[in-house]
């Protein structure tokens, strides 16, 4: 027997090809269809990384941004299609850092849901990529509103519910849309993972946070043991091969494969990102010490009720997926306790991103960023939190998150401020290609407007 998953990830060569594969996917997949250069000229260009160009222009060619600059001076390549976007605002495609797109269709209809496998709390071998439904009617709705990339995460009912995927919201099929499979893994420690809902007589382990922590620790220890067992086996196998002729020992037996442990190894090796979810200060600190015990590389998620320990959070020097800021404050808290959390984190130097934590309401992601500015978050930071910051956290900042030459041409044209609820997106480009500005809802609107 072999264990391809581990060997593959161990190999530096393979890691290189894996990241190369990602590049190729972004450029090749959807970009095949951009047949000639497109120039958007005359709008207000929000580059995110190098300011605002009031009368700007952007050139997209072969799926990439090839020029960004002033409308008057930009070079227009031969054969380009020039679109006048005077009066419009141009900004990079938005990135939603946690969604359930493709894992659900109609929330109340169980057969349309592949959100989380609740049969066990430790399910790191679940891959959202394997449930992702590329033809979901929800995806065009989000895309038409300027969200071009998203992290697909399982729902948070389990401590380790499985692995995320990073998608582009356009492509011929799931393979094209799944830019990175298993890009990260949620570790949920919000208390909701306790199996204590059914009353004392029906409780099962783990029904307390002690139970959750112990179970989690055991899972990581098991994975470490598993790793040792395999390296020992491989050493003995190599020895046996070397000494084949000397001692006639039988070939060592391969250990039994364990998908759960295998899934945890890249995280234990610090190669991939854990998304550590907690709400309260005590849960947060327990989860962080557990993560540190196993030297996990992590970003924080939610921390909606950790206001008393924001300096501690800042000291961790990790980014935070914050909120949603619509999370209700605790009973004795001021109404804007959670609304103001992004601003308070930002002031402490924490890199923040927003997520819709939704499937149907992904399109409203920018509203949250806008609302956070009403509670002290600087505008530019709010925009970064749904573009470049997200791209950085998810390791794709060389390709996404801003309007810079060389990046994938994910570009949004809207009739105004991207963070305002009133703003209507007029055209979305993904890898330089005009996305059809239609979805199920538009079709219904048009059908009943006749």
């Amino acid at each position, binding site marked *: 027997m072999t264990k391809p998953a581990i060997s593959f990830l161990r190999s530096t060569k393979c890691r290189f090809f894996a990241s190369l594969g990602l590049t190729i996917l972004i450029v090749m997949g959807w970009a095949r269809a951009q047949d000639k250069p497109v120039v958007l000229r005359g709008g207000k260009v929000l580059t995110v990384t190098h300011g605002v160009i009031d009368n700007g222009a952007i050139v997209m060619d072969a799926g990439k941004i090839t020029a960004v600059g002033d409308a008057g001076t930009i070079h227009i390549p031969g054969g380009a299609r020039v679109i006048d976007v005077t009066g419009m605002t141009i900004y990079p495609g938005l990135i939603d850092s946690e969604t359930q797109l493709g894992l659900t269709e*109609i929330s109340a209809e169980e057969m349309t849901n592949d959100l989380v496998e609740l049969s066990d709390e430790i399910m790191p071998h679940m891959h959202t990529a394997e449930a992702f439904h590329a033809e979901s009617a929800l995806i065009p709705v989000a895309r038409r509103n300027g969200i071009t990339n998203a992290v697909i995460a399982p729902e948070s009912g389990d401590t380790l519910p499985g692995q995320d995927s990073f998608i582009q919201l356009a492509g011929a099929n799931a393979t094209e849309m799944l830019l990175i499979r298993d890009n990260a893994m949620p570790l949920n420690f919000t208390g909701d993972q306790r199996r204590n809902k059914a009353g004392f007589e029906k409780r099962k382990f783990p029904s307390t946070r002690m139970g959750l922590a112990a179970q989690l620790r055991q899972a990581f220890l098991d994975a470490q043991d598993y790793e040792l067992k395999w390296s020992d086996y491989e050493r003995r196998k190599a020895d046996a091969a070397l000494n084949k002729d000397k001692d006639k020992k039988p070939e060592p037996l391969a250990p039994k494969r364990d998908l759960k442990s295998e899934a945890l190894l890249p995280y234990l090796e610090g190669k991939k990102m854990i998304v550590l979810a907690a709400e309260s200060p005590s849960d947060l600190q327990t989860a962080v010490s557990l993560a540190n015990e196993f030297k996990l590389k992590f970003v924080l998620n939610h921390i909606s009720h950790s206001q008393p320990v924001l300096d501690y959070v800042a000291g961790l020097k990790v980014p935070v997926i914050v909120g949603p800021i619509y999370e209700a404050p605790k*009973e004795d808290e001021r109404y804007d306790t959670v609304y103001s959390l992004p601003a308070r984190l930002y002031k402490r130097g924490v890199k923040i991103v927003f997520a819709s934590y939704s499937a*149907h*309401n992904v399109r*409203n992601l920018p509203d949250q960023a806008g609302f956070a*500015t*009403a509670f002290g978050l600087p505008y530019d930071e709010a925009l970064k939190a749904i573009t470049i910051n997200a791209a950085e956290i998810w390791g794709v900042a060389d390709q996404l998150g801003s309007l810079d030459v060389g990046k994938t041409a994910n570009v949004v044209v809207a009739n105004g401020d991207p963070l*305002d*609820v009133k703003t209507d997106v007029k055209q979305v480009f993904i890898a330089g290609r005009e996305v059809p500005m239609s979805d199920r809802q538009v079709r219904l609107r048009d059908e009943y407007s006749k």
Partner: protein
Amino acid sequence: MLYCVWLAIVLASAPALGQSEGTARHDILIKNAIVMTVTHGKITNGSIYIKDGKIAAIGETVNAPAGANVIDAGGKYLTPGIVDSHSHIALDDDVNEATNPITPHMMMKDAFDYQDKAIYRALAGGVTTSLLLHGSANMIGGQAVVIKHKYGAARDEMLFPNAPRSIKFASGENPKRVYGSRDQLPSTRMGNFAVQREALIQAQDYMREWDNYNEKAKRGDKDATPPKHDLKLEALADVLRGKIMVQIHIYRADEMLTEIAMAKEFGYKIRAFHHALEAYKVADQLAANNIAIATFSDWWGFKQEAWDAIPWNATMSMRKGVRVAIKSDSEDYNRRLNQEAAKTMRYGDATEEEALKMITLNPAWIVGVDDRVGSIDVGKDADLVIWEGYPLSSYGVPEKVLIDGDVYFDRSLPGLGTTHYKEGE
């Protein structure tokens, strides 16, 4: 209304009068505001004089007594308080008496938890009036209570005085799921409507019995014995008598048509369809029957009957002549209904005034209190919001919220920002 005109004249001519009345409540002059009246446009450098909790004068300049408390709005926006025409806050867990599909005798007032912090959080979002409805488990649920968000006031002060009665009807998936899961009637939409029709027929019989008795008694018939009082049928009889406004939880267009037919069959009027996510498919029929809708701005897909929801529902229905309200049905969304209303400017190009009307005057009509709240007009209750930022945007946040001329929320204050509720009391 005559009284209001008189008041305005008196105040204009005798500014000192306001003070000399010696009421506990101070008169207030709000000046330097962009006043969005909802009914008569915008006054860019406007003032409002509040007397005894009512709006007494509006204009670029108003005469107010020297002793009036002055609130300088600093050029900020001033709107009417938001009216939420579909809410289940402040009812603890007592939203649904889901033990029988017909429970018209449930009074939400009996469940009203006036200390619920959700009232405060909505207040901080600019909501001043809410219609607290029974849930949608039952085909005919209970009777609503209308509250003002005077957080920190006594329970009875929070009840909207003399608000008309409303009753909650439901339809579709919720009743059939609740009772169907218990192997009871109704478990289908046929069952839903049969249960409703049966109840209304019983109410007709009950009314007839009482009419007969009353007639006999009037004739002096000594043998006439009064029928038994039945709370349930009494409530339904009041529906048939037109004394209670009917608010129907409904999603699908076909069910709306059935409900309209049923209302005609029994001779009552439907005040509003709530949720009404498919109203855009039958908007002309709704307009013809003067049925309003209280809808979400863009919720969809959470259940099968919400699958055809589109964010243009509000504006498409409005353009067909339907009175449209955007409501919360949520203790999350009732904190930012202004943003929800602003979405109608995006989806279907509602004007600023049309959008604002969907969270003020139109829901006030649905609740039946549009003569008292929902716009900035002389004589109406001084339920007002001063906004930081433009209210119909992601950025508008209430700075001060007044109810009946009294400041109940002030963002600049430390702690909760409440003026009447004191923490720890």
